[in-house]
């Protein structure tokens, strides 16, 4: 790979990460802020996190089914062609970083949202959503080392690999939900 192309990639992913982080921090801050309005219901609301996590875990195992509350849209891929890689990266980051406005495949996101509203701490909210975003952006950084590409079909292979690993993601997500439920119970007992 020639250096200018590699540099462009690094710049684009960096911009994607930073712009998404800005969105995520803002959303987390707002969620925490929203929680301050619900402080009088806190004693009841604290049980939403463990209860929700257990219900979502039951959904993950297939015991119950209900649709994920989400907007069934991806971000606009056409921005890449319309605005070029750097500007598109910024716009993708800002859009996806908001969290609520694109697909939410796994319910762990909603557990985090509930937790942030309940804590009513905007700084902590920003911190948690920032971590969520960094987790979301990290696969973009490591994509080149996870992908075999010698024929220009890297994107397809990455997606095929991700599809094959869906069972693993589901299991890890289930583990994450159960951990969240435990943390939620301990926090509820201590009233956060």
């Amino acid at each position: 790979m020639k250096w200018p192309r590699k540099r462009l990639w690094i710049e684009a992913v960096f911009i994607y990460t930073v712009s998404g982080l800005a969105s995520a921090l803002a959303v987390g801050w707002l969620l925490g802020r929203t929680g301050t309005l619900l402080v009088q219901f806190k004693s009841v609301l604290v049980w939403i996190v463990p209860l929700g996590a257990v219900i979502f875990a039951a959904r993950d195992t297939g015991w119950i089914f209900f649709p994920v509350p989400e907007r069934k849209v991806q971000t606009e891929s056409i921005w890449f062609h319309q605005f070029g890689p750097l500007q598109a990266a910024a716009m993708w980051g800002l859009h996806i970083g908001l969290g609520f406005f694109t697909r939410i495949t796994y319910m762990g996101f909603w557990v985090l949202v509930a937790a942030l509203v309940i804590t009513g701490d905007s700084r902590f909210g920003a911190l948690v959503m920032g971590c969520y975003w960094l987790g979301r952006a990290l696969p973009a950084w490591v994509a080149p080392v996870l992908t075999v590409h010698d024929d220009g079909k890297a994107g397809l292979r990455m997606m095929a690999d991700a599809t094959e690993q869906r069972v693993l993601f589901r299991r890890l997500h289930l583990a994450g939900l159960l951990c969240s439920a435990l943390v939620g119970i301990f926090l509820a007992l201590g009233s956060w």
Partner: protein
Amino acid sequence: MKWMTKNYSQPIAPETGGMAVELAAALPAKPAGLQRATWMFALLCLLLAASLARMELRYELLPLAGLFGWIQTGGL
């Protein structure tokens, strides 16, 4: 408009890391390792959660959030 004349038949799916892949199509080839990377990241999150819980219990949500984020992108 200029962008309308371009061929955009190539797959771009930013939420699956597609943007990075699209832009990195010519980076040096290496073996696929999404599964290994996911396990390593999950383990890292677990270790972080264990460490942070000593500081304050709610900080356990930070690595869990990171794990949920990784899963959301990788497992889409």
